[in-house]
């Protein structure tokens, strides 16, 4: 081989003091960066196809706005999946929290921040409650997370319907819809996008940098090992599910703000869409690693595709086909690049292909 990578080590004993990875690499993650490039390619293609409609700030604004609620849910889901768990209940917990919160706010009356803040707190408490239930059942009762959250998925939706009698509540304080739902900052940056971005950044830092994130990854990497070295695995699992529930509750308020109604028949595909985003973002369903930014990119890929297809006038049936195909291709390209990267500086994919041909 011409130009082999420099020999990185000449001492036999002891460890190398290689520099710590730069911060952006940790937060972003090599994986998330790959898939982010793919998202940029998709955006570029649509921008060329529809420069005057797709490639407009007003359009990106709306895409972001529509992805905001899912992004908040995605932060929690990433933590759950990194523990090798899954949470199917988020959509229903969102609806339940929205319902209870709306009922409380309706009974309080008022359109101002007073009522709204009570509503926000109530929604988050509802989310915490159901997340805690999930966590306890997963961690203490050792029931598979799929079953636990499928159960609470049905139960919370059922309770939401019981509470409302199946009729949506649309008495939402005006301040929520005008400020959070459709307000803007810095001219035309939607408030809900800013809120979601804050949640995402906090979540990303937590997962990559803090003890909480480290324990989350440790539990997903090897529950047995974490337990043996004295990590309180059960407690960590309960925390993670509870946090996810809290975020779902918070998302319930965001949804109320955006839709001005409880939309109990909505969120039907939320769990699947969020899980897909997490996996597109490079997090393994088997746990142990993952990045929040990857999840956000994983949300935007289908969102941008759908937006682009609608704008370019692709028929809805073909959209489904195309979204499915692009999804597979995107993750495939990502996985090719990733396995190439794992081979280090020594040539990657091309060399592999070449070597396979000559070497065997």
């Amino acid at each position: 081989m011409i130009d082999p990578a420099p020999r990185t080590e000449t001492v036999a004993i002891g460890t190398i003091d290689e520099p710590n990875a730069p911060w952006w690499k940790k937060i972003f993650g090599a994986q998330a960066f790959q898939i982010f490039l793919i998202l940029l390619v998709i955006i570029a293609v649509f921008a060329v196809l529809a420069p005057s409609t797709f490639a407009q700030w007003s359009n990106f604004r709306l895409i972001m706005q529509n992805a905001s609620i899912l992004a908040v849910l995605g932060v929690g889901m990433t933590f759950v999946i990194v523990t090798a768990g899954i949470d199917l209940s988020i959509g229903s917990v969102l609806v339940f929290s929205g319902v209870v919160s709306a009922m409380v706010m309706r009974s309080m009356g008022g359109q101002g921040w007073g009522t709204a803040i009570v509503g926000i707190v109530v929604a988050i408490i509802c989310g915490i409650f159901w997340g805690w239930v999930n966590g306890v059942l997963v961690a203490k009762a050792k029931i598979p997370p799929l079953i636990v959250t499928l159960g609470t998925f049905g139960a919370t939706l059922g309770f939401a319907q019981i509470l409302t009698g199946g009729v949506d509540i649309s008495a939402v304080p005006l301040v929520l819809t005008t400020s959070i739902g459709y307000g803007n900052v810095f001219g035309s940056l939607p408030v809900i996008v800013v809120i979601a971005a804050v949640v995402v950044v906090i979540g990303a830092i937590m997962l990559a940098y803090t003890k909480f994130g480290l324990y989350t990854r440790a539990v997903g990497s090897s529950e047995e090992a974490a337990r043996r070295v004295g990590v309180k695995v059960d407690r960590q699992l309960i925390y993670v599910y509870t946090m996810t529930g809290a975020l779902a509750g918070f998302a319930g308020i965001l949804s109320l703000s955006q839709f001005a109604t409880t939309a109990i028949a909505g969120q039907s595909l939320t769990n699947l869409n969020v899980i897909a985003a997490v996996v597109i973002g490079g997090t393994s369903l088997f746990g142990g690693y993952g990045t929040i930014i990857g999840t956000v990119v994983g949300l935007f890929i289908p969102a941008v595709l759908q937006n682009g297809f609608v704008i370019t006038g692709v028929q809805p049936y073909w959209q489904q086909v195309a979204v499915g195909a692009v999804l597979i291709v995107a993750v495939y390209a990502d996985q090719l690049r990733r396995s190439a990267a794992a081979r280090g500086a020594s040539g990657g994919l091309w060399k592999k292909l070449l070597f396979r041909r000559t070497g065997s």
Partner: protein
Amino acid sequence: MTDERVPVLEARGLSRQFGHVRALNEANFDIYPGEVVSLIGDNGAGKSTLVKALSGSLAVDSGTIRFDGQQVDMSTPSAVSALGIETVYQDLALAPHLDPVQNMYLGRELKASGLAGALGFMDNKEMRKRSKAAFDDLGATVRSLSAEVGAMSGGQRQAIAIARAVHWASRLVFLDEPTAALGVRQTKNVLDTIRRVSDKGIAVVFISHSMPHVMEVSDRIQVLRLGTRVATLDAKDTNMEELVGLMTGAIVKEDNA
């Protein structure tokens, strides 16, 4: 050892059944402070099961365990490790996706100073420095401190687990076949480390199939056979033939414990 001293750990009549296999069968065990006890036995004799039972990661069907003469809570690994007991498991206990430093400090991270620490941030630099020192102490050849341990060589992983246990133990450390994957030099370092640790008054339970190593480091040797302790010997008063005979059942001896 004299009778007046209180064993740091003492187990009586431990039994554990897996399906049709009785891995522990009324097994006894004891170790005194600062002592190095080797636990030997044929494959499947129950050594690892005993270690797991004594370090809180496996519940037994019956039997009692005393720490410093007291029945204390030893039902979870975290309770046990709070007592100052650390364990190198035979199948190790490393999180494969984390790096050597993270594994070294898992569950015991150093807080960053000030507000950052309160927020859950860690002092990565310090942990890195100390880990490196601990690995170098063992002569471990951990080549990268930021690669996942799941991708490391058998010996590298074992060295990380040993460094961790030795670093944190204050009363007792279990080493379940710690040198199995180690190179010649690293093995020597581990045996030296065992002596050094026990000089500090920390008890060491050493499991190995290498009789020379066992003879070299032990104060006492306890032999397990089919889940039962069949002999307790002074390392000075025995020889390889006797040990092998006891392990395989060729020699039968009452348990003198």
